[in-house]
């Protein structure tokens, strides 16, 4: 019996491609968001509202990750922005290689903001760095206020929390204060937005912040700041 020492990260191949993606995005001054959530929390709707507000002000492209269909890409294409669909064929998350392939189909020289919609899943996408500047986790009020405690890794890794479907609060048992408190206990640095893609509440605030972040990114190439 012999022992072979390895001491390497299991996902180091993914992480290396993510570094390359991040370098390419930085080279072009593009802000890339990795949008993560459970299925049905409103990622695609939030992207649609964002495009309504910012398309024309910013040059935006969208990468859509989905397990089987291109339905979301069809929704996004109505907004006349470049959109690339990744179908994972059963895969529960996007990885850096899939995103690199999708990025190759985009004209990076003419973009300010790249929105990557991950597969609806709060577990696996936490492990896979795509090369994004930040993870935006979306949670809807219908999911209950304990989700951050159930999926702490994702809430710890995200920089931004969007609490969506706030128009439904009067009909639910979800306690908004408890939801925020749970999320901030795991990650006190989280920037929190409250939105409703149905009524439009909170969307201008989210878009104003996103526009400011994108312009800052375009002006100053940012050092990679991922992890932990």
């Amino acid at each position, binding site marked *: 019996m012999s022992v072979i020492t*390895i*001491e390497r990260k299991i996902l180091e*191949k993914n992480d290396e491609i993510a570094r390359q993606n991040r370098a390419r995005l930085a080279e072009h001054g593009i802000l890339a968001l990795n949008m993560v959530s459970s299925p049905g929390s409103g990622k695609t709707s939030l992207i649609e509202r964002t495009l309504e507000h910012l398309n024309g002000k910013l040059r935006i492209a969208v990468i859509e990750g989905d397990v089987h269909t291109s339905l979301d890409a069809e929704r996004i294409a109505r907004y006349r922005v470049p959109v690339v669909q990744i179908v994972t064929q059963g895969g529960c998350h996007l990885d850096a290689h899939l995103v690199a392939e999708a990025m190759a189909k985009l004209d990076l020289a003419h973009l300010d903001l790249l929105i990557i919609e991950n597969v609806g899943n709060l577990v696996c996408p*936490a*492990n896979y760095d795509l090369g994004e500047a930040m993870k935006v986790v979306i949670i809807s009020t219908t999911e209950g206020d304990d989700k951050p405690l159930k999926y702490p890794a994702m809430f710890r890794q995200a920089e931004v929390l969007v609490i969506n479907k706030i128009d439904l609060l009067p009909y639910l048992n979800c306690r908004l204060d408890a939801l925020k408190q749970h999320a901030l206990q795991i*990650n*006190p640095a989280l920037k929190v937005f409250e939105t409703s893609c149905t009524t439009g509440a909170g969307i201008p605030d989210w878009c104003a912040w996103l526009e400011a972040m994108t312009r800052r990114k375009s002006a100053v190439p940012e050092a990679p700041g991922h992890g932990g």
Partner: protein
Amino acid sequence: MSIARSLLEMIAQYAPANGRARVKVVRLRIGELAGVIPESLRFCFEVASEGTVAQGAELQIEHVPVMSRCTDCRCDFEVEQYAFICPNCDSPNVELISGNELDVIELEVEEEGCP
């Protein structure tokens, strides 16, 4: 499953290429924040390793707790219930020291029939 596949790719790089070698034990270090359920990984590894040099290998998993350091008072502490708040000075300014690990440490390999 893709973590199990990545793990097998790495094992293939290190395990001896001769047909008689068998990987018996794979030692891993997995942090509590990595979001990996050991039983699920074991199941996926069992399925994905069929027909490879690591078929039937045992996964030995070292569990790493979430440890943080307060950037204000510099104390190190174990994070319980995912409350990232310094127990010493109540500061929310804490950095992660451990808990995100997803590492392969070493393999134990048996080469059958070798003198």
